[in-house]
């Protein structure tokens, strides 16, 4: 009770210092007065009485100190004192303070921003309840892309019924194309949007609750169910002005009255999780027994494990059921080609990025280290200037602990201010990243600075403060008092020791910057190599737009003929627009979605067992290859390759090469040879260049092209090749399309280059980040070199003056300063280069066609850092050579 009461009293006293101090002052005055009176009564003189009173009292200041110590919270008093003192002394040294806070803000800001990304992609679970139970079910990764990662609806039913380790299995149609919705509002052109078809239990399985309305239920997916749609939060806001009564309203979507049944929460962004870098506006339920039933592999599988079921058990379970899956239950030889391996959904979404993120994290860690070393150096220079101040304080009774504590307070205040500014910087950076919808990285749109990031900020701020504050602090406190007071600062032992420490710090900095630069250089070179890849098509001066048309026709033959007529008409009209060189239509653009059908083989030769998947299939018009800039050996399709003439295909070089191993073709060329897909003969009209389908970096697989005159495309992307920049053609092309088909929606006009850029965006993103960190590191290192050399020139002004008075030329002085700079730089670069060799091996997996020890990169980076170091040393060297001996000798 007493203790609590006393603690409260102490806290209360802490805040009432002035009146309590005045009280004490008055009390002590009375005490002395009374003592003097009594002493005088005993017959002493006034002087003697006062002296004895004071002696008996025993130190007025000591008594006050003891009283305050007993009364209030001494530690806090000291802390506040240190704080005020530090703020005052930092305020006096405004230049230093600004530079220090700036350096820290950059270092800490970069760290917080990257931490937010890492936290979002790697550390935090996916934004679904019980997300650790969610698994992505697909075959082991192969060359053939998404077509091999999908299953048929019959396969879905078999898998769902046959496995026992999942609470449920769901999926979405991976072949939903972009801009597949056209919403008719009013009389204008229909609005184009993208939706994904999902199996009706999709949201239940993920645990996503719409903010308004309901999720899909089983009835929505039944045959003949009324069309319904769930809107994404973003589309609801953009297209429907965040209408709070939207649920229940019906709109004309793709010609059908479709009812909105729900709006998704802002936190659920389908694109951000399942197809990074694309914008999904709405979700629609799929009728599993509708047309998709016969369309082959369309659906990806997502499962939720039963509680207590391990991943290994689920794998065993899936492996047992997978061989029973059929593409179509009615076609007996379509069974037994499936594999299914569940992996945690999280690792499917962001697993590929682990390594890049760790590299990024290390790079910002490096930046922070450099910033700390730099600051340590600055503080050391500052402390050297203040050594007399500290010696004086020690002489006046301050303990070493008190001085170290004060220096640490100083670094804490600096790093606190730096962290604050860094947080603001990181918030800006994160907000910018969040708006970069075009970067194909998952979960980017949900990026934000959360509690964990704030905790991380505090952690690194304290780490930084201790790291850069402790060296100068210990150095100061360990100094010899008398030596310091006598030290004039020029050329004596203490300063030498200081300088050696500072040089070591600079060397460390240069080495760290060197490692960062080499890493960034390797990534940059990889990126340039990626840009240089022969994609098999020419992305410049080409653009694509989604084409909409109806194909009338009762029979397959009639429909094919009509389709040819419509497309031929479109292409003739578009080609006649001035500035258009070539035009063609394809159903799937490269670097996007794709599919495969089977493996046509040379006629008369039996296909060997064990070919996993066939070539990717594209249905194209004549002229498409020219529009894309893909080379053909043989001939292009023509409009005369009609439904009644010989079936023709084109295949890519890789597939032709593979087939040539089995066929005995004269001169090995596939052109003009006959293939057979099991049902019909296919004449190879031409062999075309390998097109990069999955990404710009991977190997190219097999590809086969069918003409629209003989096959139905899944969609129609009009590709044009222009002489002018493609963007300028948008209006005239759209006008032409609208003339032919008034129902043509205002679809997005996409330059092919943008599609390539999108595919390169993750690499570009990482490369740019690491490169900017390296630039930052280099700047900091240059500052560090400049600081040390400039300081040593200032310290030696007198010595330089004497030398020059004795006959040293300006050139000689300059040379000596520069050679000192070079010595530091070279030691730093050599140790940095050695460290880089080790580090570059660790990032080898992130490089593309670039050796980890790429000599050009190493040479370029060493040269760059050497030149920067020279520049940083040249400025003080120039100053040194301009020293006026007379002035230098007169001043100290």
């Amino acid at each position, binding site marked *: 009770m*007493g203790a609590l009461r006393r603690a409260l009293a102490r806290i209360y006293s802490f805040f009432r210092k002035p009146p309590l101090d005045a009280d004490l002052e*008055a009390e002590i005055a009375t005490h002395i007065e009374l003592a003097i009176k009594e002493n005088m009564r005993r017959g002493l003189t006034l002087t003697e009485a006062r002296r004895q009173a004071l002696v008996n009292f025993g130190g007025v200041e000591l008594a006050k100190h003891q*009283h305050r110590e*007993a009364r209030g919270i001494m530690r806090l008093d000291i802390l506040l004192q240190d704080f005020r003192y530090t703020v005052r002394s930092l305020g006096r040294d405004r230049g230093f303070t600004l530079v220090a806070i700036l350096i820290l803000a950059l270092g800490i800001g970069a760290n917080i921003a990257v931490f937010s990304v890492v936290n979002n992609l790697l550390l935090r679970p996916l934004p679904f309840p019980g997300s650790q139970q969610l698994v992505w079910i697909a075959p082991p990764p192969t060359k053939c892309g998404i077509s091999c990662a999908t299953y048929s609806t019959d396969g879905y039913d078999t898998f769902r019924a046959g496995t026992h380790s999942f609470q449920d299995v769901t999926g979405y149609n991976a072949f939903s194309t972009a801009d597949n919705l056209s919403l008719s509002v009013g009389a204008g052109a229909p609005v184009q949007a993208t939706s994904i078809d999902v199996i009706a239990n999709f949201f239940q399985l993920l645990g996503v609750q719409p903010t308004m309305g309901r999720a899909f239920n089983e009835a929505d997916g039944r045959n003949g169910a009324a069309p319904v749609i769930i809107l994404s939060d973003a589309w609801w806001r953009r297209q429907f002005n965040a209408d709070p009564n939207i649920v229940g309203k019906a709109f004309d979507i793709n010609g059908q009255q479709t009812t909105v049944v729900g709006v998704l929460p802002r936190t659920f962004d389908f694109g951000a999780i399942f197809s990074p870098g694309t914008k999904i506006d709405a979700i629609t339920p799929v009728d599993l027994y509708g047309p998709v039933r016969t369309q082959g592999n369309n659906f990806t599988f997502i499962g939720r494990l039963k509680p207590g079921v391990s991943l290994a058990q689920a794998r065993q379970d899936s492996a047992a059921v997978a061989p029973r899956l059929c593409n179509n239950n009615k076609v007996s030889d379509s069974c037994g080609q499936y594999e299914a391996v569940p992996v945690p959904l999280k690792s499917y979404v962001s697993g590929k990025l682990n390594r890049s993120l760790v590299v990024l994290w290390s790079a910002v860690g490096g930046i922070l280290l450099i910033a700390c070393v730099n600051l340590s150096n600055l503080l050391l220079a500052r402390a050297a200037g203040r050594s007399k101040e500290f010696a004086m304080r020690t002489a006046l009774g301050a303990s070493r602990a008190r001085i170290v504590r004060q220096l640490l307070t100083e670094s804490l205040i600096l790093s606190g201010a730096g962290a604050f500014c860094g947080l603001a910087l990181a918030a800006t950076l994160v907000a910018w990243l969040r708006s970069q919808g075009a970067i194909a990285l998952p979960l980017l749109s949900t990026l934000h600075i959360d509690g964990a990031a704030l905790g991380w900020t505090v952690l690194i701020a304290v780490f930084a403060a201790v790291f850069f504050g402790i060296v100068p602090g210990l150095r100061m406190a360990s100094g010899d008092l008398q030596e310091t007071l006598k030290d004039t600062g020029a050329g004596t032992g203490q300063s030498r020791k200081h300088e050696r420490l500072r040089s070591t710090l600079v060397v460390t900095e240069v080495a760290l910057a060197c490692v960062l630069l080499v890493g960034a250089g390797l990534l940059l070179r990889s990126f340039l190599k990626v840009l240089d890849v022969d994609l098999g098509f020419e992305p410049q001066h080409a653009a694509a737009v989604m084409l909409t048309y109806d194909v009338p026709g009762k029979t397959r033959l009639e429909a094919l003929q009509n389709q040819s007529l419509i497309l031929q008409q479109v292409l003739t009209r578009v080609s006649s627009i001035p500035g258009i060189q070539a035009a063609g239509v394809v159903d799937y653009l490269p670097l996007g979605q794709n599919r495969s059908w089977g493996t046509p083989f040379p006629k008369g030769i039996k296909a060997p067992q064990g070919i996993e998947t066939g070539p990717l299939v594209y249905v194209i018009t004549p002229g498409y290859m020219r529009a894309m800039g893909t080379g053909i050996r043989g001939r292009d399709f023509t409009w005369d390759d009609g439904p009644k003439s010989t079936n023709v295909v084109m295949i890519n070089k890789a597939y032709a090469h593979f087939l040539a191993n089995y066929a005995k073709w004269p001169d090995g060329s596939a052109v003009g040879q006959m293939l057979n897909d099991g049902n019909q003969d296919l004449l190879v009209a031409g062999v075309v260049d390998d097109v990069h389908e999955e990404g710009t970096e991977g190997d190219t697989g097999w590809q086969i092209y069918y003409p629209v005159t003989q096959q139905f495309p899944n969609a129609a992307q009009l590709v044009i090749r222009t002489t002018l920049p493609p963007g300028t053609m948008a209006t005239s092309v759209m006008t032409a399309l609208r003339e032919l088909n008034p129902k043509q929606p205002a679809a997005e006009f996409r330059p092919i280059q943008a599609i390539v850029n999108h595919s390169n965006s993750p690499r570009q993103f990482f490369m740019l980040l690491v490169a900017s960190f390296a630039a930052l590191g280099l700047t900091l290192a240059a500052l560090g070199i400049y600081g040390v050399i400039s300081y040593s020139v200032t310290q030696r002004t007198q010595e330089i003056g004497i030398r020059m008075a004795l006959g040293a030329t300006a050139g000689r002085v300059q040379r000596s300063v520069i050679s000192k700079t070079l010595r530091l730089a070279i030691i730093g670069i050599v140790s940095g280069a050695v460290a880089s060799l080790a580090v570059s091996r660790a990032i080898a997996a992130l490089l593309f066609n670039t050796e980890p020890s790429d000599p050009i990169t190493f040479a370029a980076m060493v040269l760059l850092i050497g030149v920067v170091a020279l520049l940083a040393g040249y400025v003080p060297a120039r100053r040194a050579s301009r020293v006026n001996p007379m002035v230098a000798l007169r001043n100290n």
Partner: protein
Amino acid sequence: MGENKLDLLQGTLDLMVLQTLTAMGAQHGYGIARRIEQASKDEVLLNQGTIYASLVRLQQRGWIAASWGTSDNNRKAKFYSITRSGRKQLAKDADHWQRLSDVMGRLFDLSEEGGQ
């Protein structure tokens, strides 16, 4: 300044102050200090100033109360008086001291006998 020594001194001084206030009634700081000096017949070397740390401590615990008044020779002075909980504490501490000093006395006697 050794902290152990200070602690011991503190406790002792606090007890002396409480006892003085019980014996003399309300008193100012100087009066208390003088009284302790006189009672100890100058065997305790007391820096009078240290009394003020002790007074604030006792006051914060609620064992003594303080109010400003006028001294004999018309000076404004702060007068301290013991409170009820102060008296209780004094009784407890005095008893503790008594027992401790009894034990110490017996121990010293014992050691003399043992030495023979």
